[in-house]
């Protein structure tokens, strides 16, 4: 009986018989190999494996990072998008930076749900950067203002 190996793009698993492959997350794009096959092939190109795909759903996303066609992990949240902090900084401190934060929050979400995890992480880092910039500008502004008030009060007394 032919034994198959399959790969998720990083590790390879096997050998398995066709029956055993039914329990695995094999999609048409999963790379498989068996002894005698020259190169790794996509499972979809091997007619004897067609039975495997009837029961399995099509991949959810076609994003850049989904080399493995399994469904996007439903148990994880997107990276922190700093939305709440950006709204607060828009309302209390630094309007333009708050808006930049909100735009980046939207990018985090749209990229994550399109399967572009790496892009989402980059947008999350940007969102954090703008939040931090507005926080420190606001902090410096208020600190300077307090110094100014104290100075004015002292000067007024003299």
């Amino acid at each position, binding site marked *: 009986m032919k034994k198959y190996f399959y790969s998720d793009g990083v590790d390879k698993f096997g050998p398995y018989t066709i029956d055993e492959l039914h329990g695995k997350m094999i999609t048409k794009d999963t790379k498989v190999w068996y002894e005698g096959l020259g190169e790794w092939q996509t499972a979809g190109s091997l007619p004897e494996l067609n039975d495997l795909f009837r029961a399995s759903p099509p991949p959810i996303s076609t994003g850049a990072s989904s080399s493995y066609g399994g469904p996007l992990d439903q148990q994880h949240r997107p990276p*922190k998008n700093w939305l709440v902090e950006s709204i607060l900084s*828009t309302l209390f401190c630094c309007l333009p930076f708050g808006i930049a934060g909100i735009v980046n929050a939207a990018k985090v979400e749209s990229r994550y749900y399109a399967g572009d995890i790496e892009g989402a992480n980059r947008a999350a880092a940007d969102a954090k950067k703008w939040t931090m910039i507005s926080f420190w500008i606001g902090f410096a502004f208020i600190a300077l203002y307090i110094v100014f008030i104290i100075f004015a009060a002292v000067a007024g007394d003299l």
Partner: protein
Amino acid sequence: MTKKGFLILIGAFILIAGLIIFRNFNPYESKFFIQCPFLKITGLKCPGCGSQRALHYLANFELIKAFKENCILVCSIPYIIGGVVLELKQPTKEVLSTRKLLYSTNAIYVILVIIIAFWILRNVIH
């Protein structure tokens, strides 16, 4: 003490100090409150203008007066609390789908449009 614990402590201190200050002083009458630089330079209100006065009225439970000063601030409070709660909860399927509906891409663009529309309208309509 962990960094997180330290930040929570600082946050609690600022919150309580802020509450006491905003409860006891009205930014209209006191001259110690910072004015919006955008308003000073351009003469136009930004979306955040009035938020200190709104906080003053909120701290004194005068919801309607607070709403008149900055309605977007008052409206955003339940939304912000909801966002924080969802962030802290374990990510179950329900939490994630609620989050995706109310705090993801489409919702964020709606917020952006609301803020910018508010910014324009409050300078046009008096």
